[in-house]
């Protein structure tokens, strides 16, 4: 009945001799909101970057939206069309206006007409609540606005799943909430999401499942209430006590 969007089986990855991911198993179902947390260097970013093959895994299988990810360029292209990604440092295209940033994906990948791409772009910019910035260049926007544009840019491709790689880590405290609000809105509308983040309040409010990673392995996962109230693993307890201390 339920539909698997991302299916990760026994995935391992090495950087040279260093093993970053060890036997990771994970399924993400349609409409599921997943938060991945863990200490830095635990492999959480690497893992979600494997989902659209910005990184290659060496062992195991990753199937995204029914398409197995391997070396074939065609498959990778298909997968990337269906997977949106939001980066820590926004990575907007600085030489294009905000509107163009949102239009180029549909125009150049899907062959959508310029007028239609424009309509879609404005619609999603409206949704992240910055339609008035459409004709500005990214440098003219605040960090929070840039990140919301980045979200809109990904949404314009109408992906099956959105990946967030620490989307608020580079933002001023005041701007974190505007981005999190946008993400919460997305979650409410039923978007399938995988977020690497340290925003525990967001995880508690939005996530269906919280995953804790350490040293390249999934150590613990569960519903947010249980995960925060009653962590099983020693490493999880330590991590939670560290980040919830202040």
């Amino acid at each position, binding site marked *: 009945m339920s539909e698997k969007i991302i299916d990760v089986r026994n995935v391992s990855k090495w950087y040279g001799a260093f093993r970053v991911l060890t036997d990771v198993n994970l399924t993400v179902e349609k409409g599921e909101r997943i938060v991945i947390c863990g200490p830095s260097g635990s492999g959480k970013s690497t893992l979600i970057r494997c989902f659209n093959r910005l990184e290659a895994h060496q062992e195991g299988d990753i199937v995204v939206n029914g398409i197995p990810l391997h070396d074939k360029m065609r498959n990778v292209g298909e997968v990337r069309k269906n*997977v949106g990604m939001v980066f820590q440092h926004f990575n907007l295209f*600085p030489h*294009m206006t905000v509107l163009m940033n949102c239009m*180029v994906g549909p125009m*150049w990948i899907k062959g959508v007409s310029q007028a239609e791409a424009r309509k879609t772009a404005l619609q999603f910019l409206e949704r992240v609540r910055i339609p008035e910035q459409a004709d500005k260049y990214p440098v003219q926007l605040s960090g929070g606005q840039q990140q919301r544009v980045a979200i809109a*840019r*990904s949404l314009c491709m109408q992906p099956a799943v959105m990946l967030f790689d620490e989307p608020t880590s580079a933002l001023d405290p005041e701007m974190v909430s505007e981005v999190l609000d946008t993400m919460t809105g997305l979650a409410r509308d039923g978007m399938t999401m995988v977020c690497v983040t340290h925003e525990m309040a967001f995880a508690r409010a939005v996530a269906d499942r919280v995953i804790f990673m350490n040293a390249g392995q999934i150590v613990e996962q569960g519903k947010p209430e249980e995960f925060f109230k009653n962590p099983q693993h020693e490493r999880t307890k330590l991590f939670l006590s560290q980040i919830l201390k202040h």
Partner: protein
Amino acid sequence: MLYPDTVESEVLVHKPWFVAVMFAAIFALFLTFDLSGTSMGELMRPVIGEPLESGIYGRFAIAFVIAVLFCLNVVLIGFASLRVQITIVWLELLLLFLAFFKTFNLSLPFMAEKLPFLVTQGLFTTIYVSAISIVIASAIAILGAVAKLSTNGFAYAIASFYTSFFRGLPLLMQVYLIYLGLPQLGFIIDAVPAGILALSLCYGAYMTEIFRSGIQSIDRGQWEASRSIGFGFGITMRKIILPQALPVIIPPTGNQFISMLKDSSLVSVIGVWELMFLARTLGQKSFQHMEMLISAAMLYWGVSICLELIQSRIERHYARSKVR
């Protein structure tokens, strides 16, 4: 630009010690040269009497007047606004140049007579050869840069061999090698195509390195963002990476264009009737070398100034997305 400190300080040329040092230096300089025999001495005749007999007093007076005029000039310019300062200094330097050329006693009618041919034949060929070479060199540069950055062993080897070879040989030698060497292989090549080929290959090699460093200067995140949307290599390169690399690439490339314009004079050795070739041959008959060389020099300079203006226009265009 150099971002100036916000601390206010007096203009350098208005500081007494600076003016004093400047005055002393100019005075000493002109005291060592005896200018009493020049037109400056003639101008000073009411003060120093017969210039050639004025002796040490004449030299002293001339040096003193020049130093005073110079310092006064500099101090006064110091009061003007930046734009006016730049214009005045440019004009004054230009005047000094003209005064220098005047000492050659050039025959203006001769220059006027030869100038049309120098422009229609010489300058035209120079621009024509350089323009075609620039286009070809840019195309080679993009290919070369991509090849040098690729993980394909063949591409990298060929590209690095190419840049190493063509950067390692004098351009003059490349011109000879292509013009005289290709016929050995059975390709009879005309002087103009040979020149264009040599210039393109040589400058393509330099520009390969410029383009490579420009492409490398783009943050990895741009590649990742482009790939994550689903763009392949072609679109990523053409629409995302190169447009951002251009602002980095353009200043050194503008340099190369100007340099190419002048290095195109090297193809005169294989008998192409471009500006340098004509400048040397037209004056020969009547031993009026200086006239033609200076005319050609002015033409080269004029075209270079045009290229500089174009470059600054393009740079301003690309500065658009950087303005807050």
